[in-house]
């Protein structure tokens, strides 16, 4: 059994209480909205894309501690990276929080390794990936809000 502190690590709590890059961006040339119906989380990711480089990234919205911290740390991690590097980072991050066996963070994940505890909480995977899916949508220039519905166990859509 994993301890709650493995999920809610200090770094995560810190970012959820004081999210970084938490503002709208006037200079943004890409923008996407993400929605997680399970939590009711809504996040907007703003992106200033310069050629192939994510010059600046910010976000706004209301979400649970995991999704807010994930968004905050994502903006820090991908700033200045190329699209390909950001995609690769998401792939590694996704593997970290959904993979089987011992989590292998690897140096390229950097601070994002604190999310390794999420794998013990399958219903929370969507919270951590919401900002990443939203960033991806912003990069692809998708107009429709993205949902995390394809991720993990079915989200709340029925029941009482």
């Amino acid at each position, binding site marked *: *059994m994993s301890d*709650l502190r493995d*999920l*809610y690590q200090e770094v995560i*709590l810190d970012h959820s*209480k004081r999210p970084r890059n938490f503002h709208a961006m006037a200079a943004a040339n890409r923008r996407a909205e993400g929605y997680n*119906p*399970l*939590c*009711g*989380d*809504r996040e907007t990711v703003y992106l200033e894309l310069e050629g192939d480089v994510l010059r600046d990234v910010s976000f706004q919205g*209301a*979400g*649970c*501690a*995991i999704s807010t911290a994930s968004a905050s740390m994502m903006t820090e991690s991908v700033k200045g990276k190329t699209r390909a590097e950001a995609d690769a980072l998401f792939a590694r991050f996704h593997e970290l929080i959904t993979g089987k066996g011992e989590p292998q963070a690897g140096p390229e994940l950097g601070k994002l390794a604190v999310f390794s505890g999420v794998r013990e*909480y399958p219903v*929370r995977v969507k*919270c951590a990936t919401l900002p990443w899916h939203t960033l991806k949508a912003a990069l692809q220039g998708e107009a429709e809000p993205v949902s995390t519905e394809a991720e993990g166990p079915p989200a*709340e*859509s*029925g*029941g*009482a």
Partner: protein
Amino acid sequence: MSAVPIADSRGAPGTAYDVEAIRRDFPILATKVYGKPLVYLDNAASAQKPQQVIDAEREVYERCYANIHRGVHWLSVHATDAYDAAREKARRFVNARETGEIIFVRGTTEAVNLVAQTYGRAHVGAGDEVLITGLEHHSNIVPWQLLCEEKGARLTVAPIDDAGAVDPAALERLLTPRTKLVSVAHLSNALGTVLPIRRIAEIAHARGVPVFVDGAQAAPRMPVDVQEIDCDFYAFSSHKVYGPTGVGVLYGKAALLDAMPPYQGGGDMIRSVTFEKTTFNALPYKFEAGTPNIAGGIAFGAALDYVTAIGLDRVAAHEHDLLAYATGQLEAIDGLRIVGTAREKAGVLSFVLDGVHPHDIGTVLDREGVAIRTGHHCAQPVMDRYGLPATARASFGLYNTRAEVDALAAAIRKVIGMFR
């Protein structure tokens, strides 16, 4: 079927409510979650099952299982008798006039869809209106929306006030000559508000408009008398009344049901079939096409026996005490706000915590063994009404205790310690 007797003082009038004896009937309540005793406070989503219900379902398959209403053989006759007996138990449970008024369905959701697709399609036309309230569960919104879309009709919504109550006068103002049906919850799953459905039925009937009542949350929590309410339809689900999933009841006044077109076509709902014409069976079978959930239906009857033996009035009093106690305990927590403060409430307590998202509350409580629901509770319009993305919701059952409320309060304090 051999009935499992309900032992000792649980149901005896005049005796104390023996919650410990009741708890012993529910094997799952002995479960440990992450090494901690399970505190199950998600009864509004689904209730746990007593041994009597588990045994009843198993015994059907072990002793008297066959298809019903079909065979001349011994097993079929016995299975049919047991299934019919369950229908009689359901009739008594809501005090319907006759068993023909008790349609077995998969659950409350199917009951709403059945009425929307039969009564609704026959009576709601272009420009007509279906009136609901602002605190309905999605299952009492979407079937009407589908109907209105198909017919070019309009869904109108009686507002809820800040406390989460529905003022019958506000509902009355929305009744127009185009209103063809009023559909309201008896008890709100998101806020715990008890609606004045008797008054609502009176108001609607004064205009000649029939009333559908979604009783999914009320049926396990208070005595229901459809004749006293004088509603035209009443629906509830077995799984919330401590019975199996996949069974539920649609009550309808016989005259209305008789005049309604059938819902689904198939076996059991017909009297005779030729390629030229089919004549339909009598009530309730006209609305029950195909082989039903036989064992589930019989076990549902056992669940109704179980709660009836305890007494719904006693269950209501017990849950009222828990709700009042929990309200006091939670209100004392700094930064906690109860959502839904109507004067008439039952069994359901929704709340939010300053600075902590409900989903995080749910995860921390879970690690303390406390099972609650977090999210929009399939009532997104209610959440929108309060400008909330979600709430945390504790909902009580007949087996919950004050000590479990204390465990809930202690776990919430742990959440605060972690996030502040």
